[in-house]
């Protein structure tokens, strides 16, 4: 059955004539058409994000305030980890182009080297995105709604996050929306303990960073994109295995690597747009 897939359809059946009107193969053309449709899907999502977000100019959080951590290290590094993720994804796109270029020269070892690097970059990106999600959901110190209905953020020295509630309540000061502050101490602790609620982290109903829509859009857009990256990694891995087994060497051309490369570049392209609209603007 698998042999049928490799059989070449004769040109008369395929194109109703002699050649492809675009001078590229059927598989490559269909991949391009799929990429255009997927790009429009992401375009729709990003436009929906832009539209909804403009209703909230005041309360929408700054990305530098939300995304300022590095895994395993304490400190304030605004946007650095996201920049690293972007860089790794671009580099994995570059290794993919080099793999395709090696395919043009029928250099099997070159393809294996560059394709493996691409898979590694993709796995790093998905892992990083998973870490970002978990950190976003876990949150830091959060805010409280006091008994009088006023919102106040919990601030600690050096922005340290405390994981145990009693420790946090001892060490936290309060910063209200109009700018007034109450330093950490007995008075702050009283207010916190008598507050109506304490919002920490993020879920689909409320989050400590801003409006409800902020977390919803974060999860949906980065999640949808992350799903594409994951499926891209799986596809690249399968094609890598086929290259090692010599399937394409026998076929005489490495066009399958090129088609997978198109999908992988598309994933990188979408990330460039998501990065600009979600993290920078």
């Amino acid at each position: 059955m698998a042999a049928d897939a490799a059989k070449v359809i004769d040109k008369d059946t395929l194109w109703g004539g002699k050649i492809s009107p675009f001078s590229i193969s059927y598989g490559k053309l269909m991949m391009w058409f799929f990429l255009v449709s997927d790009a429009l899907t992401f375009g729709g999502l990003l436009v929906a994000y832009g539209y909804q977000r403009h209703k909230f100019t005041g309360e929408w959080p700054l990305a530098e305030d939300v995304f300022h951590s590095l895994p395993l290290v304490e400190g304030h590094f605004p946007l650095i980890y996201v920049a690293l993720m972007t860089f790794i994804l671009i580099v994995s796109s570059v290794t993919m182009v080099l793999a395709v270029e090696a395919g043009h020269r029928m250099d099997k070892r070159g393809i294996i080297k560059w394709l493996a690097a691409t898979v590694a970059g993709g796995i790093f990106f998905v892992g990083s995105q998973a870490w970002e999600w978990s950190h976003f959901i876990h949150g830091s110190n959060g805010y409280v709604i006091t008994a009088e209905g006023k919102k106040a953020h919990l601030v600690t020295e050096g922005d340290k996050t405390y994981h145990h509630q009693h420790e946090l309540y001892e060490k936290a000061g309060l910063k209200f929306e109009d700018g007034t502050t109450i330093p950490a101490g007995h008075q702050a602790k009283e207010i916190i303990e008598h507050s109506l609620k304490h919002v920490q982290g993020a879920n689909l109903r409320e989050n400590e960073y801003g409006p409800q829509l902020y977390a919803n859009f974060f999860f949906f857009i980065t999640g949808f994109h992350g799903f594409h990256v994951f499926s891209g990694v799986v596809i690249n891995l399968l094609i890598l295995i086929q290259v090692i087994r010599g399937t394409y060497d026998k076929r005489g051309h490495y066009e399958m690597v090129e088609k997978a490369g198109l999908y992988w570049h598309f994933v990188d392209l979408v990330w460039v747009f998501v990065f600009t609209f979600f993290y920078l603007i």
Partner: protein
Amino acid sequence: MKKKAKKIRKKIWFITLLLTVITVAEVAVGIYFNRRVLGAGSSAWASIKIGYIILTLVKAGYIVMGFMHLGDERKNIRITILAPYILFISYLIFIAIQESDYINAMLRMYAE
């Protein structure tokens, strides 16, 4: 054949360097000239936003033309892929900004 391959590889590394430099510049601007520092309604912030969008389109252009080799394909497939997309996205961006601006103005005026 080897010479041509070398030239292609040089072009790929050049595009990579370009993309890296643009990304680093965007992140640096993003950290130091953000919405809070410049003010949400200011014209400086608006110019920075336009700058981001233009740089993003430049990056996208290099990825599509260089990495995806659309630049090496025939003109008819280039137009088939790029024209509908450019048309649609320009329209969507315009309508998103137009309508959300209106809603924003209405909310400011009538909500508390």
